[in-house]
């Protein structure tokens, strides 16, 4: 103990500076973005006051917050509708993406044959596909789900496929030497090896499924068929209800951030013991 204490006392100027800088960075990482954010909101408020901007054009932050509180019932019930589509489509994207990736991993031929279809689905703008879906699908929820799924499944599929194919050659030989079956190789080698890739795809897909859900509602909402947050935004736009527009927007952003944080946490918890990406930096 005393030896360690002596060591700290005996820090040379360079090491002492490094310790100070680390401490500063630790605090600054949280404090700095927060301070900038508060500054930006304050500036927003001031701009409104200085220029006498009416609240149906740019509401003051306080008014937005007030609206968020007053319209909570309406907004949150809409948020719930959007969230349901988001999570269902994310779930389907996981099942579909991983399922297809496992199928692709069974043979190069399957992958070569079917991957172009996945790319076609990915690169065609969902807004352009929706009118077709609208013709072929009757059920409102199914429509939205299909839309959000098309947007969200690709990163999971492409990442998981990459992961399943990036197994160490020697490990593959080891499994072969021990007479592993195809299923054993998938279960004990390829799926765990693909896990970091899959989780990376999942993080992207989480945000995309929210975007997919909102965009789908927008397109569907234009024909007056939806009750999600997007339709609240369209409605508020028609009525020049800018405070509610802002409130709904903030709610969507916060939801997106929350989804990202939760998925990041899940990823960290799964990978923290073994994967480079989850290891704490050591000097």
């Amino acid at each position: 103990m005393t030896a360690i204490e002596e060591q700290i006392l005996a820090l040379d100027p360079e090491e002492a500076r490094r310790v100070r800088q680390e401490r500063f960075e630790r605090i600054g990482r949280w404090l700095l973005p927060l301070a900038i954010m508060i500054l930006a909101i304050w500036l927003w408020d001031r701009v409104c006051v200085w220029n006498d901007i009416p609240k149906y054009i740019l509401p003051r932050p306080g008014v937005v917050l007030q609206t968020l509180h007053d319209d909570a019932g309406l907004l949150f019930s809409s948020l719930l509708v959007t969230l349901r589509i988001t999570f269902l489509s994310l779930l389907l994207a996981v099942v579909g993406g991983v399922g297809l990736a496992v199928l692709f991993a069974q043979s190069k031929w399957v992958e070569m044959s079917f991957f172009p279809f996945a790319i076609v689905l990915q690169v065609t703008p969902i807004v352009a596909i929706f009118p077709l879906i609208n013709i072929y699908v009757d059920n409102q929820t199914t429509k939205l789900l299909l839309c959000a799924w098309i947007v969200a499944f690709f990163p999971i599929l492409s990442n998981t496929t990459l992961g399943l194919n990036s197994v160490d050659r020697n490990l593959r030989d080891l499994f072969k030497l021990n007479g592993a079956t195809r299923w054993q190789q998938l279960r004990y080698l390829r799926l765990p090896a693909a896990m970091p890739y899959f989780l990376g795809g999942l993080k992207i897909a989480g945000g995309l499924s929210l975007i997919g859900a909102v965009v789908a509602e927008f397109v569907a909402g234009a024909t007056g068929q939806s009750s999600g947050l997007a339709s609240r935004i369209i409605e508020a736009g028609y009525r020049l209800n800018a405070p509610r527009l802002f409130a709904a927007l903030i709610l969507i952003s916060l939801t997106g951030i929350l989804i990202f944080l939760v998925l990041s946490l899940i990823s960290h918890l799964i990978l923290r013991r073994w994967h480079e990406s989850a290891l704490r930096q050591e000097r």
Partner: protein
Amino acid sequence: MKLEKVAQQPGSVPGPTLLALRGVGKVFSNGVTALSNVELTIREGDFLSLLGPSGCGKSTALRLIAGLSTPTSGVLDWRGSGALGRSNIGDRSNIGFVFQEPTLLPWADVFDNVWLPLRLKGVSRAKAAPAVMEMLARVHLTGFENAVPRELSGGMKMRVSIARAMVTKPRILLMDEPFAALDEITRFKLNNDLLELWQDERFTVVFVTHSVFESVFLSNRVVVMAARPGRVFAELAVDAPYPRDEAFRTSPDYAALCRQASDVLIGAINSTAGPHHDGH
């Protein structure tokens, strides 16, 4: 250059023939002749080193023996009685393989890594536990069952790799430059422990290395290979008795044997004619 037989008397651990390579050749699809007309007899209980410059086909030979690759010409004759004698390729379940890198599952802890070969054969965790724990004790890793590979040093990872290869009690252990990436002190320790294990269990080892000193210290037979095409150049019997320890490592006998092996190796390297003299 003619084939030079330095010594032909049997080594200190004779046994019946386990595997004979007869006229074995391997030509890759890109036209490279990795091995040409290899004649090699491996006896039960042998600690046989394949020594040679890079590109001499030592690793290819090991992969052929493991059944991970098939020869273009010639046969591998597993003539030994028992489980190994079934086919030309051999029963893989009776082969242990240690790669150049530890090649562990990074997400699995030490126990699960050693359990893996048994698990693939359908042995449950509980049933496998005694064998796994015994092997871990044999490689001096008791107490590290729950560590994941990244928490271990390079030498410890290699120990796990050896434990995994040995947990099925294979009759033959194939090692592909297993200690090449380790520091000298760690390598010496692992050499000693490997010899100890080998003397206790009496399995057969084929050990690929490019270190003269390592091959002489470990083996009773050193097979020197030459490159382009990969072939057996000469065989050297190392007649020093086992157990070999640190005293042997510093003995004049060892130095003399190393010198002898070095000379043969230099001969093998010089026998590789042509412009591409120093590797690929």
